[in-house]
């Protein structure tokens, strides 16, 4: 008998240990997937909402009409918002926007989760796959099509949004098949950033908006001084530069039959332009790939005359001591400028579509957001409100800040397909092989076209 009780208690002990062990192995999972907790919270909120509803109805008639709409869905709702653009520099700014929204909508609270851009899409995909998608989240233009066509996004078309509030091109960018899947939150574009001191030293006049590739190349050759480690220009050899150079040459990435057509004469011209510079008037690709932020460091050290880069560099360059200004990028046959856009979207599976739409609209279009973003030199809000940008334009350097908006006159948006990343990698590798393996531009592009066409449905 005695022995039996001993075994029994030891069983209990073992079971306790077992529970600990199981807890231990599951804890690794929850620590890596912090956002899972957020969605769990939302489900809890959803559950209380249903039970809370009957009692709420007795109060509703007494409430004023405006708040009644908000209260209609019931109790306090927690929405998760997953973002890559806030951390680490702009968490406080996002927090200010969240606070303002919560003050206006006391029944909604926003639970912000962040991830670094490099990890963001992996984290997002796994959450969606695990049916734990955040209620609302951020998407860039290039990835939005994949999510929209996979049915992961809530159609915001009839959710009380005001289309006139947004910059039309940006709004259209997140419209797929007539459905508005996202509201544009931010945009930024690429300009030609140049070092005035180097131009002065070489006795060359500054670049103007009328410049073409030829002007840039001629200046770059004069400005390059390899002995002193000074380079004339730097333009990344990448998919994003290629599609833009293609547009500047008057070419099409996808032809009329929706098949890849970038191996045209214009395509070859664009690829040749991008790949002829490295190691000559521009640092070699080995140099650029070998050191993180090589280009930024080079420009900041005053050894790069012209830099094709985005307006997000402005705040970093302000304190670099380099006397710089900007101008709309040189074109070839025509002008074409790259624009990057991010949108706020809602998950198709959110339990609170009305609240989600309301939050997204506030996050993207509210006066608070516009002011916060501009004041903190976060990215530019994609609102159709030139008055709001007056303060932004007044900040110097760069003196020619208006180039940021001039670039919007000739926008070339990147081609997007469902298998976007693969396409970008194919084009990137093709360009790389022209530079490092001496493959002819025609052969490299022909091959890339075949590969891209194989990705199309």
């Amino acid at each position, binding site marked *: 008998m005695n022995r039996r009780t001993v075994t029994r208690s030891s069983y209990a002990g073992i*079971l306790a240990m077992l529970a600990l062990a199981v807890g231990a192995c599951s804890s690794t999972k929850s620590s890596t997937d912090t956002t899972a907790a957020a969605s769990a919270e939302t489900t809890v909120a959803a559950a209380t909402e249903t039970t809370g509803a009957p009692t709420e109805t007795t109060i509703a008639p007494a409430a004023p009409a405006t708040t009644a709409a908000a209260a209609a869905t019931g109790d306090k709702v927690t929405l998760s918002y997953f973002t890559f653009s806030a951390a680490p520099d702009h968490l406080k700014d996002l927090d200010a926007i969240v606070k303002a929204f919560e003050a206006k909508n006391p029944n909604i609270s926003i639970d912000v989760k962040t991830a670094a851009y490099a990890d963001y899409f992996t984290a997002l995909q796994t959450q969606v796959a695990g049916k734990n998608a955040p209620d609302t989240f951020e998407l860039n233009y290039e990835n939005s099509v994949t999510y929209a066509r996979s049915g992961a996004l809530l159609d915001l078309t009839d959710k009380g949004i005001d289309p006139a509030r947004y910059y039309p091109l940006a709004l259209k960018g997140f419209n797929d098949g007539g459905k508005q899947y996202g509201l544009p939150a931010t945009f930024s574009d690429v300009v030609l950033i140049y070092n005035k001191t180097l131009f002065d030293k070489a006795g060359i006049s500054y670049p103007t908006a009328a410049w073409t590739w030829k002007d840039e190349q001629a200046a770059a050759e004069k400005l390059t001084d390899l002995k002193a480690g000074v380079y004339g220009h730097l333009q990344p050899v990448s998919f994003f530069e290629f599609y833009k150079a293609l547009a500047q040459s008057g070419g099409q990435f996808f032809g009329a039959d929706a098949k890849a057509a970038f191996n045209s004469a214009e395509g070859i011209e664009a690829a040749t332009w991008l790949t002829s510079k490295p190691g000559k008037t521009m640092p070699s690709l080995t140099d650029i790939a070998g050191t993180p932020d090589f280009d930024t460091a080079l420009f900041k050290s005053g050894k790069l005359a012209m830099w094709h880069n985005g307006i997000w560099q402005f705040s970093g360059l302000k304190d670099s001591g380099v006397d710089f200004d900007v101008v709309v990028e040189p074109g070839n046959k025509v002008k074409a400028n790259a624009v990057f856009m991010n949108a706020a979207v809602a998950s198709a599976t959110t339990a609170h579509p009305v609240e989600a739409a309301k939050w997204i609209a506030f996050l993207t279009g509210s006066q608070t957001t516009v002011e916060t973003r501009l004041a903190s030199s976060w990215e530019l809000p994609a609102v159709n409100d030139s008055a709001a940008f007056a303060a932004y334009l007044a900040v110097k350097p760069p003196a020619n800040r208006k180039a940021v908006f001039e670039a919007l006159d000739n926008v070339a948006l990147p081609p997007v397909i469902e298998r976007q990343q693969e396409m970008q990698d194919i084009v990137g590798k093709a360009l790389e092989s022209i530079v*490092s393996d001496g493959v002819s531009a025609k052969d490299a592009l022909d091959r890339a076209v075949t590969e891209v066409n194989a990705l199309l449905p």
Partner: protein
Amino acid sequence: MVGAKGWRKAGIISVFLAPSLVCLLAFSLGPMIATAWVSAHEWNLIRAPHFVGFGNYRELLHDEKFQRALTNTVYYLAGYLPLVMIGGLALALLLNKRVRFVGLFRALYFLPVVTSWVVVSLLWKWLLHPKDGVVNWALSMFGIHGPGWWTSRTWAIPSVILASVWKDLGFVMVILLAGLQAIPETLQEAALLDGATSLQRLRLVTLPLLTPSLFFVIIISLINGFQVFDQVWVMTGGGPAGSSTVVVEQIVKNTFSYGRAGYASAQSIVLFAVILIITAIQLRTQKRWVFYA
């Protein structure tokens, strides 16, 4: 184990096994079975999985990129395995002697083994930096213009091999050292008395008795080598222009960058099959050369 007593014993054993068994089932066997299931689907992780049967496997047959990854993986193994085995064996033989500071040397050579792959890869990435790297600087002292290492098509995989051999040398050394110390002193002495030279003793006494350890290290190194990933990911990212792509690197890219979880799962299953077959062949052929004393 028959009767109530036997069952009770089995029950107790299983309770003791449970902590590791539950984790094994949940985080190893479960995902493995799920991988097989996913491999029969097209799934970008966002949309619901769509059944395609053996479609992913059929596509693999014609996938040039996958073939290149397999070839590169074999290329990596062909460079890595002989170097790490011969190097590890040489180190083990050296450090099996009673020399001064032998403990310190053993610890030093083992240090890279316990260092994170990412740290080692970054270290070698900088050592082999084409412009500012120590290796090319040292070569230039002898008038040699060093190659572009991981930025060069030809040298990307040799760079990865170099880093891997450096890291794993200590592991091979430790296993072989243990094997060497298990060889009875009496056998060596007997050979010595019979007038065997040191080379003869190595060839006829030491190596045959070391074969079980060698066999173990080869199997482990091959299995790990087929799964080479971290060092490729950190040092070359599969580049330049896809020239150093390996199987696991493609699996990761396909799943998380390209949204092709099903295709990546099929690749995982194929890799698993390749490793299984090669390991099975090794186990079969061991009778011919592995000598268990």
